[in-house]
């Protein structure tokens, strides 16, 4: 059975190739269903392959073929509970989003192409997840970036979409740079990029300093892909892509790659406490920073985008706390409810005929009941209301931070405040969208989405509701499941007993307070005027983009301009032209030799070969 593992990657890839080559002939609904099938089938395979782990089966490595054996990089796949979990999330949520897209992308002129990209993304993501060495992981990492670029700028005729894709690509490159340096350092230290060898020998080979350097570089990669401070800026802009793309890439799967990578290299991070502290801090800061930004957004998708950054901050904080299980747990639950929220937002946008501004919505719950109900589940789940998924995972992270004590108590505080803000802005989103008066423009007739879009919503809503029960303080299901992976690593665990209940109550209280504040502010009649001061700044993302533009982009542009206009024309061209002049002068002196007669060239060739043979004979001592 494990022999079919390669199908996980091969099937979506096949789908991508088929749709790229023959998409136009396959036609509109068929290509979507084909793509969906080629994601759902891997999901089923992965599910079948995951079952043995529940019975305590060993991890396995499936060797496919030699790629670059010298650096320990083969095309071989690692199948352990962590990658299994990730695969299930990617293919499961991905499959639902594919089905959703069948309806959502209806009527798009490049419909098959969209699904080709989606399938390609799934294949890339699975490559990243299933890689058993850093090199293959990096390949997946880059392919994911590429497909994300393709998908963000899918509607490339919109200049903003094209710019967003470019931005995502460039910002990710900065992160990749860190990742690549980390890989080089690892190769320099271990002489191989194979996970198994690296992790097994890490304690013997690495000093703490080296481990810190490597992990920090890896973390730079993670900040890029997982949209942490300071490299988060691409994610809000990436909302220019189609909504399923936002759901798939920028909520459920790709952005979690950084978290996954840190969890995967947990052994290395464990050796570098400083790095861990930095990771946790960055995560916590990102969480609260993005949460405050989310509060001020008017665009429904941008709220969710900042919310995603904030939640990713939670996850990064968790892995920084060495609460890897908690991080992965939150990754999983977040995948469900954030995908749900995005898809719901997409459904709303679909209903509102592509209107994204929440100030122009309101009172939609009667028009799109299924969307409303499912999104309400997502809202409560992300807010962390008992007993929905978000409650369990977020609470575990916060409890872990609390349990670690010391400096991390500050992070705990930040996390709790972030939970409050999260509840606030999510409630704001729901109220503005579904309650209150109609504020939409003339000529908009909201309607419920087709079944292809609502069914994924329902499934995801169910998952968001119950997924948390897998890993409760009472019954640590995920913990056991992931034990083969993190068994050797010293993880921080929430304290037992009363403390955990107290902490849970605190965060629940925060959530309730947040919801109530939001209700008090938005739920009663007239909406407050949100202009000027904080609101403008938040809408502008605190001017971070402008700041980057001034501090980084502008000097870069200046330097490049100088290089292009002055250095290149004067120095580089000068050298080239000088060479050309020299060559031309030499050439004109030699042109006499080029008689145009083939036979004289032939004579030269034969004479030359005669000379060569003679020289060889002399060297060989024939004379």
């Amino acid at each position, binding site marked *: 059975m494990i022999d079919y593992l390669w199908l996980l990657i091969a099937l979506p890839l096949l789908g991508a190739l088929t749709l790229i080559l023959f998409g136009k002939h396959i036609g509109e609904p068929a290509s979507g269903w084909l793509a969906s099938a080629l994601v759902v089938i891997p999901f089923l395979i992965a599910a079948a392959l995951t079952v043995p782990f529940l019975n305590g089966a060993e991890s396995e490595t499936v060797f496919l073929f030699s790629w670059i054996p010298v650096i320990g990089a083969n095309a071989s796949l690692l199948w352990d509970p962590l990658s299994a979990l990730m695969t299930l999330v990617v293919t499961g949520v991905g499959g639902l989003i594919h089905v959703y897209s069948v309806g959502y992308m209806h009527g798009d002129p490049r419909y098959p192409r969209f699904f080709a990209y989606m399938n390609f993304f799934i294949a890339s993501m699975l490559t990243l997840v299933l890689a058993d060495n850093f090199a293959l992981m990096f390949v997946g990492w880059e392919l994911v970036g590429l497909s994300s670029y393709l998908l963000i700028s899918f509607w490339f005729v919109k200049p903003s979409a094209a710019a967003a894709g470019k931005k995502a690509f460039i910002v990710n490159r900065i992160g990749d740079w860190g990742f690549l340096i980390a890989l080089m350092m690892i190769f320099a230290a271990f002489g191989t990029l194979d996970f198994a060898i690296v992790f097994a020998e890490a304690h013997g080979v690495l000093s703490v300093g080296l481990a810190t350097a490597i992990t920090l570089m890896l973390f730079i990669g993670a900040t890029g892909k997982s949209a942490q401070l300071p490299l988060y800026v691409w994610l809000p802009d990436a909302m220019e892509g189609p909504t399923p793309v936002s759901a798939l890439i920028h909520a459920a799967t790709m952005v979690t790659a950084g978290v996954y990578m840190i969890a995967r290299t947990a052994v290395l991070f464990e050796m570098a406490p400083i790095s861990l502290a930095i990771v946790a801090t960055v995560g916590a800061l990102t969480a609260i920073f993005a949460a405050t930004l989310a509060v001020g957004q008017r665009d429904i998708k941008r709220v969710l985008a900042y919310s995603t950054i904030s939640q990713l901050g939670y996850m990064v904080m968790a892995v920084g706390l060495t609460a890897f299980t908690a991080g992965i747990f939150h990754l999983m639950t977040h995948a469900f409810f954030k995908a749900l929220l995005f898809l719901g937002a997409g459904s709303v946008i679909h209903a509102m005929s592509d209107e994204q501004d929440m100030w122009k919505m309101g009172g939609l719950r009667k028009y799109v009941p299924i969307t409303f109900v499912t999104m309400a589940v997502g809202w409560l789940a992300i807010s962390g209301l008992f007993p929905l998924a978000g409650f369990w995972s977020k609470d575990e992270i916060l409890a872990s931070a609390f349990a670690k004590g010391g400096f991390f108590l500050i992070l705990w505080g930040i996390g709790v405040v972030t939970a409050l803000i999260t509840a606030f802005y999510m409630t704001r989103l729901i109220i503005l969208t579904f309650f209150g008066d109609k504020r939409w423009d003339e000529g908009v007739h909201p309607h419920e989405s087709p079944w292809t879009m609502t069914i994924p919503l329902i499934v995801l809503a169910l998952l968001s509701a119950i997924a948390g029960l897998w890993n409760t303080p009472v019954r640590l299901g995920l913990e056991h499941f992931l034990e083969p992976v993190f068994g050797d690593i010293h993880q921080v665990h929430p304290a037992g007993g009363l403390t955990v209940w107290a902490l849970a109550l605190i965060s629940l209280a925060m959530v309730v307070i947040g919801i109530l504040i939001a209700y008090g502010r938005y739920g009663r009649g007239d909406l407050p005027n949100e202009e000027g001061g904080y609101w403008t700044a938040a809408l502008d993302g605190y001017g971070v983009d402008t700041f980057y533009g001034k501090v980084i982009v502008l000097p870069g542009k200046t330097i490049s301009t100088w290089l292009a206009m002055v250095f290149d024309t004067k120095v580089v061209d000068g050298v080239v032209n000088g060479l050309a002049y020299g060559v031309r002068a030499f050439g004109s002196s030699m042109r006499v030799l080029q008689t145009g007669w083939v036979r*004289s060239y032939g*004579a030269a060739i*034969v*004479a030359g*070969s*005669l000379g060569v043979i003679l020289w*060889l*004979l002399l060297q*060989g001592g*024939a004379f």
Partner: protein
Amino acid sequence: MIEVFLFAIFALVALAGAVVMLTARNPVYSAMGLLVTMFAMALFYVMLDAHFVAAVQILVYAGAVMTLFLFVIMMIGVDKKEERVETIPFQRGITFVVALGLAVVIILAGRQAWVTGSDAFGSPDMVGTIETVADSLFGTWTIAFLSTVFLLTIAAVGTVALAMFGPTAVQSTDEEEGA
């Protein structure tokens, strides 16, 4: 003993063919001379136990390549006898010296053990049956063999392209209009 005689006869035939090829004014006779040389070569291959190569030699060279030559000769060069006046300065002298030198140094090189190798590697009475050749061709030299497939495909496509996209079409219509 009989081998020596055969060698002598075939060698003379081969050389005679080469001389005819070199000196005939009419390209058809040149082709015939080369054909004779190729037959002699095939017979040498038989003497050297390379039966398969001998058959292929006739099949490919005599059967295909030289036929193609004849075709093209009849198409283009058949009526034009070559002028014997040398136009390129020193060409004849250079040719004479260089060709003679080449023969001498190749023969000299052939006498060097480090050029030819010294010991027998395989079985001395190896015979070039199809089986042995095929074992080597499809075993050790598979990649090379496959690349010849690409080479031939490219050659075929190139030939068709060259033949198809010439100025002929224009010319022929002109002629038709003239006629």
